[in-house]
């Protein structure tokens, strides 16, 4: 990594922001995850937690345990090192999705908007790998990059009050999965039986920033059996 364009700025008195650029690209985002993993491995005393986003890494620290200047120096040394650039074990997570009309209640609307058949939409949607740029909005919500623009579709004019957990949707050029029941305006095209967020489970969150997601189309029968197996 070169440190071109990298800015380190205080974000309050107990956090700092390391900014790698000002556009959403896989390249910049990968550098965010690289630094995140490198600092994680170093186990720097005083770092409380880190929040990766599209173009920057927020580092929360305890100023009684590590100074701003001390941490700044550690980061400057880390970003000079050759980046791992994806050599960090990137997980590929398969997300089974049932695209039946029962769950994909807006497939018809997306079909009308894009001029593609429902089958084509499903094929295109499940044909790409999606990078998890970051999580936020609600616990476990992944901001995904890499959707084929042919299936882009504007949000619904009137948002829904209750979208069930696991719903898969499209909003403009983005696709995503609702981890918990919430209101929202995304066009729903299917649903996954997997719990993306389950506080009762040892691994509370299914995905993390830097992962790649792959949607796998499944039938309703499979949806039900995965759901049952998972909640055992």
């Amino acid at each position, binding site marked *: 990594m070169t440190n071109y364009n990298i800015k380190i*700025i*205080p974000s*309050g008195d*107990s956090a700092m922001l390391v900014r790698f650029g000002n556009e959403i690209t896989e390249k910049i985002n990968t550098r965010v995850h690289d630094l995140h993993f490198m600092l994680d491995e170093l186990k720097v005393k005083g770092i409380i937690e880190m929040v990766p*986003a599209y173009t920057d890494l927020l580092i929360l620290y305890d100023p009684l345990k590590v100074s*701003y200047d001390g941490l700044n120096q550690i980061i400057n040394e880390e970003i000079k090192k050759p980046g791992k650039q994806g050599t960090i074990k990137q997980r590929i997570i398969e997300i089974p999705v049932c695209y039946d009309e029962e769950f994909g209640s807006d497939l018809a609307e997306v079909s009308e908007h894009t001029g593609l058949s429902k089958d084509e939409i499903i094929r295109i949607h499940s044909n790409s790998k999606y990078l998890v740029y970051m999580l*936020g909005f609600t616990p476990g*919500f992944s901001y995904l990059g890499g959707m084929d623009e042919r299936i882009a579709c504007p949000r619904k004019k009137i948002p829904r009050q209750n979208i069930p957990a696991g719903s898969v949707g499209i909003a403009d050029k983005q696709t995503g999965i609702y981890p918990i029941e919430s209101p929202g305006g995304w066009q729903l095209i299917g649903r996954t039986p997997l719990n993306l*967020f389950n506080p009762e489970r040892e691994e509370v969150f299914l995905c993390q920033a830097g992962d790649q997601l792959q949607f796998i189309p499944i039938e309703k029968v499979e949806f039900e059996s995965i759901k049952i197996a998972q909640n055992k």
Partner: protein
Amino acid sequence: MTGQIKFISGGMLTSIQDLGRYGYQKYGMPVSGAMDTYSLQLANYLVGNKRDEACFEITYLGPEIEFHSDTTIAISGAIMQSTINGKPVPMSASIPVSNGEILVMGAVKKGMRAYLSIAGGIMVPEVMESKSTYLRAKVGGFQGRKIETGDLIEIGKCSPIPIKEIPSPLLFIYPGIQTIRVIKGTEFDRFETDAWNTFLNSEYTVSNQNDRMGYRLSGTAIKHKNGADIISSGIVNGSIQVPGHGEPIIMMADHQTVGGYTKIANVVSVDLPIMGQMKAGDKIKFKEITLVEAQDLIKKQEENLVKLFNL
């Protein structure tokens, strides 16, 4: 042996909070925790708990609680008129309570949030290493929700403890206009040149839109150079976002982990508890200090708390 308490009424918004749920923001999980972490720690000190034990955070209008065992409690933070079996009880002092007695907490007189601590703590399971309630996702605390009428809650074992008070220099005070100290924000350069002066020289009022997520202020609008939106990025407690309308919003305990608006400033850590005691109509003036000064204040407060807990 553990004990039990029963809520005869839950109050306006009573929830279980501790010092927050750290380590999960990278998954989009807000920190939550007490809005006034300072008062929570004082309340814990008074009943012999650890600093980070959970308390009931009581908002604006208090609950009514029946005790089903002997214990010791304390109330700190906002001033609320409270009685046990009809007799007034002091704020910020240890209070012995007997089986069968009823605590009634009234409306707030000063501040916004009181903290009720119970010797031995509140026996709810930790979720992601914290007892804090995050209401929006129904996580933590008591069944992930606010306390309601009829709730029975297990409390910890209470060994006899000496009666304690808080030395007066450590107590909270509530002046009329609060001066809230800030340092410059991460998008400071995205505002017009006179924006900083406007921000520091204006008086802002806490609007009706204030809750555990954030406080929207009304007052002189702050102008952006080129729009209010940024690529979504991590935010912290006390971040002051300025959306397009120009009125600042201060991020509080339940704020989302990422935000898409420019941030002009950040409330310093030691003044966050004061923010947590603000209510609609309260006035604020901001004062700039340096990062070094802000961190010295944290150090001083920490020394005071450590000293107190070692008394």
